[in-house]
């Protein structure tokens, strides 16, 4: 049992840190520090920088463009990225459909799609959830009917993050509805420019446009865009969900956020002193930091191959619950910093082209924005209730 890094790993850490300091654009860094959200143009710019360096897809095999790092290197890289304040790039291409394609796709699919994912030329979104399916993902109803060399797709997807910004969508579709619901699902790649696709924005409670409904009306999809075998899509979907949950704890980002919280709370007046020193706030801050330590070392234990003692295989479920609860309590710490200045809110007016400075301290607006958006974290990706169901199922059956 050993916490330390080898000299080579320390050298790698220094290399990453130095490169990040040099190459993460200063204007993006400033936005992140001010609690602003980065949208596609900013993210794409950052993606191109990372892609040029060859660091865009740490977990990909070398043959498809990965850097060939060890798990410890990947851990170091993710941590340094986060501590530098670099927001993650959207996972849909790089962490979700990419691995599905290089694991289950054919050579033509690999040759076509993988380089375009790395470069950012193709931006992806995920067609899993449907209106009515909620946490019961396998109950999906979007249908793909065979028609010569094509499928004809009809149905609707919901909560599709970034559909309005995307070139492609990977979809779970039903190709057979005679067996049990997990059977008869296929995994299709669909060009968003195909006629018959309509994207309808969903505005969420923080006023942001992140998610959408996507409607499919007689959408013609070439069969060459089917991943693996027809009716076996649930296998690939589960593979992807497991991938999605890796790194779900986002420990590095949480450390970065906690640093911001501590810094801001130390600069915030209260009761003639500083907010960070008020006993109630100080206690919650300490509790949060302890929870983050527990999350970090739980992740490290699981990365070392340990399983939970009572419900092996549910590590990701546990991390999802712990990480989202922690994220929500951190967003409440932010709200407390902002105080009255968490109220001003122009999320429902068009901000584009506005050069008005924020009302109140720069970080205050982001506080409410993130707090509200963060309420979704215990809902999406399988609500925390579902996660507990899964854990309990394993816990009580072995």
């Amino acid at each position, binding site marked *: 049992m050993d916490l330390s890094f080898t000299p080579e790993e320390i050298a790698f850490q220094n290399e990453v840190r130095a490169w990040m300091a040099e190459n993460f654009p200063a204007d993006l860094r400033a936005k992140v520090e001010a609690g602003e959200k980065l949208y596609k143009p900013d993210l794409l710019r950052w993606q191109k920088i990372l892609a040029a360096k060859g660091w865009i897809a740490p977990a990909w095999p070398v043959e498809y463009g990965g850097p060939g790092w060890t798990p410890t290197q990947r851990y170091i890289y993710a941590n340094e990225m986060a501590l530098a304040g670099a927001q993650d790039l959207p996972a849909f291409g790089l962490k979700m459909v990419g691995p599905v394609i290089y694991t289950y796709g054919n050579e033509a699919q690999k040759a076509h799609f993988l380089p375009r994912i790395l470069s950012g030329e193709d931006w992806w979104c995920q067609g899993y959830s449907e209106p009515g399916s909620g946490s019961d993902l396998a109950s999906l109803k979007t249908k793909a009917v065979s028609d010569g060399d094509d499928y004809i797709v009809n149905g609707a997807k919901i909560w599709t993050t970034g559909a309005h910004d995307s070139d492609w969508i990977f979809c779970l579709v039903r190709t057979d509805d005679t067996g049990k619901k997990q059977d008869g699902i296929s995994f299709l790649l669909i060009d968003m420019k195909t006629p018959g696709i309509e994207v309808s924005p969903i505005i969420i409670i923080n006023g942001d446009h992140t998610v959408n409904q996507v409607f499919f009306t007689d959408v013609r999809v070439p069969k060459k865009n089917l991943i693996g075998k027809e009716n076996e899509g649930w296998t690939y979907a589960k593979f992807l969900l497991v991938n999605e949950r890796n790194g779900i704890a986002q420990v590095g980002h949480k450390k970065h956020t906690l640093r911001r919280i501590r810094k801001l709370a130390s600069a915030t007046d*209260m009761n003639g002193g500083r907010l960070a020193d008020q006993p109630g706030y100080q206690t919650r801050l300490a509790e949060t930091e302890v929870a983050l330590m527990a999350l970090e070392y739980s992740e490290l234990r699981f990365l070392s191959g340990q399983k939970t003692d009572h419900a092996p295989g549910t590590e990701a479920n546990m991390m999802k619950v712990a990480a989202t609860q922690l994220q929500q309590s951190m967003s409440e710490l932010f709200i407390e910093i902002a105080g009255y200045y968490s109220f001003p809110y122009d999320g429902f007016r068009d901000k584009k082209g506005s050069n008005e400075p924020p009302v109140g301290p720069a970080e205050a607006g982001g506080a409410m924005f993130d707090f509200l958006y963060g309420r979704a974290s215990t809902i999406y990706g399988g609500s925390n209730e579902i996660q507990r169901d899964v854990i309990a199922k394993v816990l009580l059956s072995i």
Partner: protein
Amino acid sequence: MDLSYSDEQVMLRDSAERFVDANCGADNLRKMRASEEGFSRAYWKQMAELGWLALPFTEDQGGLGGTAVDTNVLMEAFGRGLLLEPFLTTVVMGGGALKAAGGRDDLIGEIIEGNLLLAVAYAEPQARFDLFDVATTARKDGDGWIIDGHKAVVLHGDSADRIIISARTSGDRRDKDGISLFIIDRGAAGLERRAYPTVDGSRAAELFLNSVKVGADALLGDEGMGLAILEKVSDDAITALCAEAVGAMKVLLDTTVEYTKTREQFGQPIAKFQVLRHRMADMMMEYEQAKSMALVAALKVDSADPVERRKAVSGAKVQIGKSGRFVGQQAVQLHGGMGMTDELSVGHYFKRLTMIDILFGNVDHHLKQFSAAA
């Protein structure tokens, strides 16, 4: 000892509920938040006609002599309807300040008529929840005063005809003495405002006072004695907000119960899942405790005993903060993705409860006030 509503209170409640059910709610809010003032002048006029703007004022002042309990009957209905009109700022806070300061029954008359909108500018950027932390200054200028400073997050500070502001006429920034209240016109020279929407769909403003000159008659109450008035205004506002929160929580609980009975997952209504059932039982218990504490605040906010008043009002704010947070957050959670949308009403109630938790001091602040009174 009798804790049931009088017939008059039941009638008032019914009429207010009818009004908000017919006119307000989330649809109205989405419409109004795009408007210039963020509320309806026509509704305000109707509220005046219904006599509601006269409720807390004495009969001498042309009012109805209502108690804090009566005000809470209205506020609970307003919470149920996400009512946007500036009742809290104009009647409870502005009117309350005029009542406590005395001498301006003319303005109270205008409030009652529906012809005067007020805002109370008590907060400052550095002050957080301390009413006495006042950096804004008012210095003598002949008979009148010259006021300089920055008042923060003034609710309805953009639409108010007049604004009551706290300014320091003596002492240091965090002294409890030396704070005075002034009433100034919206058009006063040197008064700049930056107006903006707030997260709950309402509006507020930053007020910048650059050598604003006011006459001697702008002073409300005695010079340097403004803090006691502000504290009463704050306590009355907290009491009213507690009732509003109770109304909002009731809707969230109703909505959540209804939603879970119709929403199906895994082949059955999600209301069949024991975990969600217990969650809703907990929401219901939080609601009832919040309702009890809102009542305590209303019954004791006018108590002559300062410890009793402090414990009742701060205790209620603590309870409302905790219960509102739980009920609001769980209502969103149990609505799943739909609860996150601007389209459903649940998010709007949740956001209002989040704001109420912060207004006039959050749970921490009032736990400390409560302990200090013990």
